[in-house]
């Protein structure tokens, strides 16, 4: 990307928002340059560099809403985009509610832009990853994965006087080591690529792979499990997708519908969203410009909150919680900076507390749509499943399928680690899910 365009983006936003043709105009802009260096069989096989932008314009004429978007920053394209949004607003029907975009806001100071990430060259990144390839060769494993970096900026301007700007960077390494039936996984995400120990993570994935060799079968059934953070992140992500957003709450498919204030899981479970917490991939505002703040979702097992944007909040007569996606995204708002609160046990002590059971490193292809009201989910274990006896790993297991009501299972949590780990959550770079290790007394494996 040819540098950041803060002034130009804000200027274009102000020009569009100043148009007198609508009761309200919002300009939501995002520019990004991303590079993804994919590797397989310990060699780079795909390199993808994309520079793109999105300019969304949402207009209100009375109670009518029109949205149009373009990826061109040219003035003529933005003017056409505004005309399209106005045309849609004139052509569509009145909403039964009046959408209220936010006015001017004060934002917390969040630093998510790091020159180390923005300036990392292909040669530097390829050389770092290739040093991991050479180590893997000695270990007898093959490495696959990707090193991705993003440089971006977001601008929100609206006709109520709101103006918001935020630059950011993002770096993510995922490494899968494989050898025969065995595999291991490690990943890290940060705004600052210099904080990612690329070689160390690739080595960690290789070590797990080697421990996963010669897997044995174990019959389906209900087992005590120790889920590592990568596995927990999948479950919390699906909880968010199926139940923490306003749309599923409204249409009653969500597990929190009609249950706010009730105990929905065990007291050891606290899940919240906090876009300002630097441990996640922080951002000061959402894509309507509403400030980020902590939103309790489940507090000590009790259903506490739901994520709203201005649109869904207007429908329900509430205030936005700062979870708007781009205008026109019909999936509705979701928490995008999720945290599951850590506990008081050191992760290293958790296998001992498990005693006899199964240690799960990661899940694969989890699906939470079997019965979202009951948080019934299924998925496979992947990249390391181990049988534990008397607190010691005995041997690796073949991948197993779980089918489980997750909130019920969370009601059986015996221990939660102090340590947490952060993972990307969804497509937008500045979203994350941060979770601990958890020990559950009874988790159903069905095949």
């Amino acid at each position, binding site marked *: 990307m040819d540098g950041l365009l803060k002034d130009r983006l804000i200027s274009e936003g102000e020009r569009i928002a100043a148009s007198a043709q609508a009761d309200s105009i919002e300009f939501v802009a995002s520019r990004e340059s991303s590079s993804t260096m994919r590797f397989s069989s310990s060699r780079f096989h795909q390199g993808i560099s994309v520079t793109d932008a999105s300019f969304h314009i949402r207009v209100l004429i009375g109670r009518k809403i029109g949205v149009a978007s373009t990826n061109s920053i040219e003035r003529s394209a933005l003017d056409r*985009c505004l005309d399209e949004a106005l045309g849609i607003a004139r052509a569509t029907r009145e909403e039964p509610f009046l959408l209220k975009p936010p006015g001017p806001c004060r934002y917390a100071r969040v630093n998510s832009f790091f020159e180390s990430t923005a300036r990392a060259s292909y040669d530097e990144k390829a050389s770092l990853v290739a040093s991991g390839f050479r180590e893997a060769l000695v270990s007898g494993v093959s490495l696959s994965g990707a090193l991705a970096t993003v440089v971006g900026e977001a601008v929100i301007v609206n006709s109520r006087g709101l103006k918001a700007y935020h630059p950011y960077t993002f770096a993510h390494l995922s490494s899968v080591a494989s050898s025969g039936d065995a595999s291991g996984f490690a990943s890290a995400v940060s705004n600052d690529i210099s904080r990612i120990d690329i070689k160390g993570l690739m080595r960690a994935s290789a070590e797990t792979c080697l421990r996963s060799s010669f897997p044995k079968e174990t019959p389906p059934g209900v087992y005590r499990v120790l889920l590592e953070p990568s596995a927990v992140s999948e479950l919390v992500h699906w909880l968010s997708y199926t139940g923490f957003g306003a749309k599923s709450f409204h249409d009653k498919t969500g597990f929190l519908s009609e249950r706010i204030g009730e105990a929905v899981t065990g007291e050891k479970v606290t899940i919240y969203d906090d876009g300002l917490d630097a441990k996640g991939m922080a951002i000061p505002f959402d894509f309507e410009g509403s400030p980020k703040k902590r939103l309790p979702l489940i507090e000590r097992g009790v259903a506490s909150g739901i994520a709203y944007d201005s649109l869904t909040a207007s429908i329900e007569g509430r205030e936005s919680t700062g979870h708007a996606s781009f205008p026109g995204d019909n999936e509705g708002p979701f928490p995008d900076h999720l945290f599951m609160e850590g506990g008081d046990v050191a992760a290293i002590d958790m296998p001992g507390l498990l005693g006899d059971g199964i240690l799960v490193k990661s899940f694969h292809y989890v699906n939470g749509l079997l019965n979202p009201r009951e948080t019934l989910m299924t998925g496979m274990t992947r990249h390391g499943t181990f049988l534990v006896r008397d607190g010691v790993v005995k041997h690796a297991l073949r991948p197993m399928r779980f089918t489980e009501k997750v909130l019920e299972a969370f009601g059986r949590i015996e221990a939660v680690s102090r340590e947490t780990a952060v993972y990307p959550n969804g497509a937008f770079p500045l979203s994350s899910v941060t979770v601990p290790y958890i020990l559950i007394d009874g988790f159903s494996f069905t095949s």
Partner: protein
Amino acid sequence: MGMKGIFVSILARLKKLGVDYADIRHERIMTESMQALDGEVEGFSTDTSAGVGVRILYRGAWGFAATNIVTEESAMKAAKEALAMARAFSAVNTGKARLSVSEPFVESYSTPYEIDPFSVASDKKISLIAGVTGAALREKGISSAEAFLEFSRAEKEFCNTDGAFISQTILTSGGGYHVIAGDNDDAQVRSYPDGHHGLFATRGYELIEELDFMGSLPRVTAEARSLLYARECPSGVRDIIIDGPQLALQIHESCGHPAELDRALGAELGFAGGSFLTPDKLGTFRYGSPIVNIYADPNEPGGAGSYRFDDEGVRAQRVDLVRDGVFTGYLTSRESALAVGGVSNGSMRGEGWGGLPLIRMSNVCITPGQGTLDDLVSDTKDGILMSVNRSWSIDDRRLNFQFGAEIAWEIKNGKVKEAFRNPVYYGSTPGFWASCDAVCGRSEWRLWGLNSCAKGEPMQVAHVGHGACPARFRSVKVGVGKP
């Protein structure tokens, strides 16, 4: 200078810089989408996205760069970016990528349609989706209803150093709706004509008119309502019949994805996984029973995954993936085809201008057999009929799967009996397809279309079609929805 002139100029400069191969793709995609919720317009938006992507093979290493600024200067800058990445890879890689030969076509193509959806009055489209969701909400027991329409026109131009120049216009229409029957204890969804936002096809607005949303509504709402009082689908080993939309997803996950040769060669191991259909199995592996025949064909008229040339400039071709139950073919690219001693069958597609072309399903279809669904039900003594996908999960080699459907009905002595809710079935891919003993005939066969097939990093989403009809599978494990 037109796009072709820009392409030729950039490719000539890249040749001077020593590239083994390069191609350029320019796309402009216009999208219109609208949604209605409970009788009100929930969203109505348009999007225009344009850009150019340059793919380079340099000393056996790949680089791809794309930009949203469509000028010669910007495209050349992207080309140099791709070259810089390829150079960095070539300095550390072992082994070199090579390409199989491909004829340099100079052609243009547009998908046919009857009614341009962009020319249809907005009010007509809004009335349709607001009308069907409003009518649904007036039905007893229905707590919410949502409807969708989406139309896109992708104008593409492709040029490569072999001399190809291809322009294509792909028009896609899609839509559907779902209703939710809900009370304080449960919420059950029924979708029409399929889950996953309905049905997509490379057709015009005539598709939406044929779908007849309003005509289907009484059945769909009645089924949703019935699920609130239905029994949970019982567990056990049963004969099952799965209907067209559900079989489409079964084909998608357990045949289409594993037959992608890049996946089988390990290109996706770092993300979604590999494939049990490894090259050593080609031509010999018993994938299913002898009545199972599955093919991929981008030329299938109206398919969501239809095109004439792929994004490597290779002509679209039909390929038999499974013939008489035996695994016989892969979806291939110019590079991967060399691994199985062949040339590309034209299966590379990128999402828009910014997506690196990957091997993607086009229209992966089962060959119809004989008879109607009624015939099949009559021929089933004790079984379960499952309809429309609700949940999907499969392991990283595409073997261990579990699928949930929106609704099921018990079949007793050749008759459809009571409805079951939350039906789920599971198994292992070859064993499941080996148990297939009946596939309905052409009259029950239909091209289903999805707009949400995900693959790669950064994740790309593709439209894919699946020709499918009801089929029967013997002795399948069902009903593990409640452990």
